[in-house]
């Protein structure tokens, strides 16, 4: 085939591809993303403590309360950050090998009633109250109340210093390892953790070097988190905005040179 004909067909193909609606492109990873959401929905508890508890490892001193949600069950009962949970509703957290599952069982099987044994600075505490009824994210399966968060749909407005980003976690769960640029989520508040893919062509060599060095040491700490309020039938395009005035050495060290942004909201019905 002559060269000019090949060029002509290539150009035509490119035009047709670009003109196709963004929502028509269904990423290959979507089923995996849906599976993730389904798994997320099914594993959510009906009751919560209203606190962040470190249940990663068994500890004979109990599970550490890392933070208390203002106005939540733990806050109402008087728990404080720094306290240690010894038992909930008779389930011991100081002698279990799996504090995560023990806490989950303890919270769910009492119909929301809580009897907590804790310790504060070595002194025992006995607290009681009612658990928080959690908002279930199971609505992600309902087309009428779900939306999308995506990172590669549309044309990122680089002229406004906005570049591609990647969503690494949604509501504390890791996103699939395989490329999936669009995630279906239930309507409501969601916590995203995002990493930036800022085009190095917009940075000088010293900045590229400093950013690479910072990322090497910070690893996942170089990501950023924010809360997004997803409305039903909407798709939110997430990107990373380069802050040109924060490209000095200290700002790069502090990971302050970029911020996650929702650069576009488009209507997109859930099938």
């Amino acid at each position: 085939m002559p060269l000019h004909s090949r060029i002509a067909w290539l150009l035509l193909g490119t035009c047709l591809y670009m003109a196709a609606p963004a929502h028509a492109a269904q990423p290959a990873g979507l089923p995996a993303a849906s599976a993730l959401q389904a798994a997320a929905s099914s594993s959510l508890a009906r009751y919560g403590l209203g606190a962040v508890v470190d249940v990663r490892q068994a500890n004979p001193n109990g599970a550490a309360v890392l933070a208390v949600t203002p106005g939540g069950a733990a806050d109402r009962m008087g728990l404080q950050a720094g306290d240690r949970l010894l038992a909930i509703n008779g389930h011991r957290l100081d002698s279990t090998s799996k504090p995560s599952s023990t806490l989950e069982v303890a919270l769910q099987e009492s119909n929301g009633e809580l009897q907590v044994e804790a310790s504060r600075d070595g002194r025992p505490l006995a607290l009681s109250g009612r658990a928080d009824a959690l908002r279930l994210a199971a609505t992600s399966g309902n087309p009428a109340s779900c939306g999308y968060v995506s990172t590669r749909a549309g044309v990122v407005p680089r002229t406004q210093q906005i570049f591609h980003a990647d969503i690494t976690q949604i509501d504390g769960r890791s996103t699939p390892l395989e490329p999936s640029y669009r995630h279906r989520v239930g309507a409501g508040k969601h916590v995203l953790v995002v990493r930036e893919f800022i085009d190095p062509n917009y940075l000088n060599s010293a900045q590229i070097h400093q950013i690479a060095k910072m990322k090497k040491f910070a690893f996942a700490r170089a990501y950023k988190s924010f809360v997004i309020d997803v409305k039903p039938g909407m798709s939110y395009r997430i990107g990373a905005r380069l802050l040109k005035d924060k490209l000095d050495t200290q700002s790069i060290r502090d990971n302050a040179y970029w911020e996650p942004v929702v650069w576009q909201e488009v209507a997109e019905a859930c099938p």
Partner: protein
Amino acid sequence: MTEPSTQVRNELHALPGIPLPEALWQRVDSGRRQKMRRRKILAGFASLVLVAVMATPLLVPLLADFAGRQGEPLVAYQPANGPHDIQADLHALDQALQVAYDRGASDAEVAPMWVAREALLTGVQSPRAAPRRNRI
């Protein structure tokens, strides 16, 4: 002008052939090749113009959308406004953090959520809500 006589014509035919210069055929070939190249370039250019004309109706909505987007204000993430929003965001963050701890996430993985939580906490007055400094 009168026709040459048959005799003259025969005499002309009888004349010996003149040897042509060696470079003549090369010049003729090169001229022919240039002519062909010009034709190909012209044909290619015409094809591109044709494709561009055909693709214009397809590209117009895309270009219009892009131009419109340039003028649209971006919805950059901003911290929640008002105590109710902050409380809802904190609730979502704490749930996400607990889910991360439940699955055994590393300190580095949960760190961005703690940073976001600290940023939100500046608008909350409850001292019990403050996380321990040695959490990470």
